[in-house]
């Protein structure tokens, strides 16, 4: 019980630090700590596999790429662009309300009907049985969403790159003239 409360406070504290920290790299490391304390919560619940996957995939690969990019482009040189705008305020309030509403719905109505997987014994088998039988469609939808995001990012990245290459070529041509 004490451990649960402690881990919850830790996770929330680090999550708040991600949002409110002024330094980008500190935010990135707070994100890493949030992911690790989430892994500890999974571990505390007895699901070693989920916690290992959380560390392996989220903390060990995804968060590393975040930190990597942030260090590479040195965001601090762009200054602190945390200007207050009404649009931002409205959008963030709306998002927070939607997320809270979803939580309230789940807690109010569905908490008993949610099929809880007993992950503590033979955890991988139970988990993947749910994932590839009962929840196969949402799982596949999530992968399609990820694929779309990958394609979109590639499109955006290559588009900008082409322009910059063209500009370079124009500059070179001008130098020759």
């Amino acid at each position: 019980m004490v451990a649960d409360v402690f881990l919850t406070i830790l996770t929330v504290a680090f999550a708040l630090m991600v949002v409110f920290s002024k330094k980008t790299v500190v935010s990135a490391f707070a994100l890493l700590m949030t992911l690790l304390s989430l892994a500890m919560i999974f571990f505390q619940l007895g699901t070693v596999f989920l916690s290992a996957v959380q560390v392996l995939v989220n903390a060990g690969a995804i968060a590393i790429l975040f930190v990597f990019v942030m260090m590479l482009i040195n965001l601090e040189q762009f200054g602190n662009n945390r200007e207050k705008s009404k649009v931002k305020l409205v959008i963030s309030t709306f998002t927070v309300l939607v997320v809270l509403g979803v939580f309230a719905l789940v807690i109010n109505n569905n908490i008993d009907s949610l099929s809880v997987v007993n992950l503590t014994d033979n955890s991988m088998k139970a988990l993947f049985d749910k994932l590839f039988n009962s929840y196969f469609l949402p799982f596949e939808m999530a992968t399609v969403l990820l694929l779309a995001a990958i394609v979109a990012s590639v499109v955006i990245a290559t588009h900008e790159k082409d322009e910059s290459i063209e500009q370079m070529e124009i500059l070179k041509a001008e130098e020759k003239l």
Partner: protein
Amino acid sequence: MFEVMLEILIKTVVILALPLGALPIIIHVERRGAAFMQKRLGPNRVGPFGLLQPLADVAKFMFKEEVHPTHVKPFFYTAAPIIALVVAILPLACIPVMAPFQAFGRTIFPEVFRSDMGIFYAFAASALGSYGILLAGWASNNKYSMLGALRACAQMVSYELSLSTSVVAMIFLYGSNDIHVMISAQTGYWFGFLPKWGVFLQPVAALLFLVGIFAESNRLPFDLAEGESELVAGYHLEYSSMKFALFFMAEYIHMIALSALLIILFFGGYSLLPGLELIAEKAPILLAVLQLTSLGIKIALMIWFFVWVRWTLPRFRYDKLMDLGWERLLPLGIANLIVTVLFVYFRNQ
């Protein structure tokens, strides 16, 4: 409750004391081995055969003046070496040094963290290995350190993929992710003389894993993170005295942990070396000691292999390293995984 706490405490002390105690010996072997391969003598002045040299080194590291540069980011600068060492020690928790045995009326498992998911825990802990280096490079506020850290990080993330494919292939082959089940599947002999080690079943996976651990521990030929000729010393350029020693220790402990994982997956873990069964049959009480000895000998041979490769192969160029990782090893790993899964599927039919 008290008994359980005591058991965990004893295991933790043992699993920490063994690698930390072996560390000076490994560093001495590395230096003497380098000298041996380069036709030099190496450190041979302090004590017999220079065996006291590591002690002298430790004394020097402890009492040397610590230079604390003013341009660094203080918190992360101090945290980085500690994180590097702690993360390097973590995977050791699930490595069994001998078979489970009966004592005090219950079965005692000789690893600190007992779970049938032990192998995942080990790789999850080892996946965090690049944070120490990344932080050190960034906090040093120095272009050489930064470049070294970025190289190390990209390299570790890339080679983790091919490493994981080989691990997953082995998990399919043994049909379990319990380290003790994996090791017991590798005990015994084929045709009466060939040990049932995983390396004979899956030579491709073993090769992938071997290359992967060289890249993960940032050792030559993949030590682009340090690259003396290009980056001065890479990520630990701004560190001196004990802080530098922590990075040094982290590298060697990471090597020991990864070697132990290689041995568990491909060389039978603590299963007895050929020939030791004769002693174990005559004196069953020595079985645990013999298993510990076997594991120790295997890890020692693996460390010698690390040293041997370090002073034999030159450093890769960075683009070739990335090509090797993404264009050769990853497709090879995925192909090997598919073949293994098909084989296991039709075997179980």
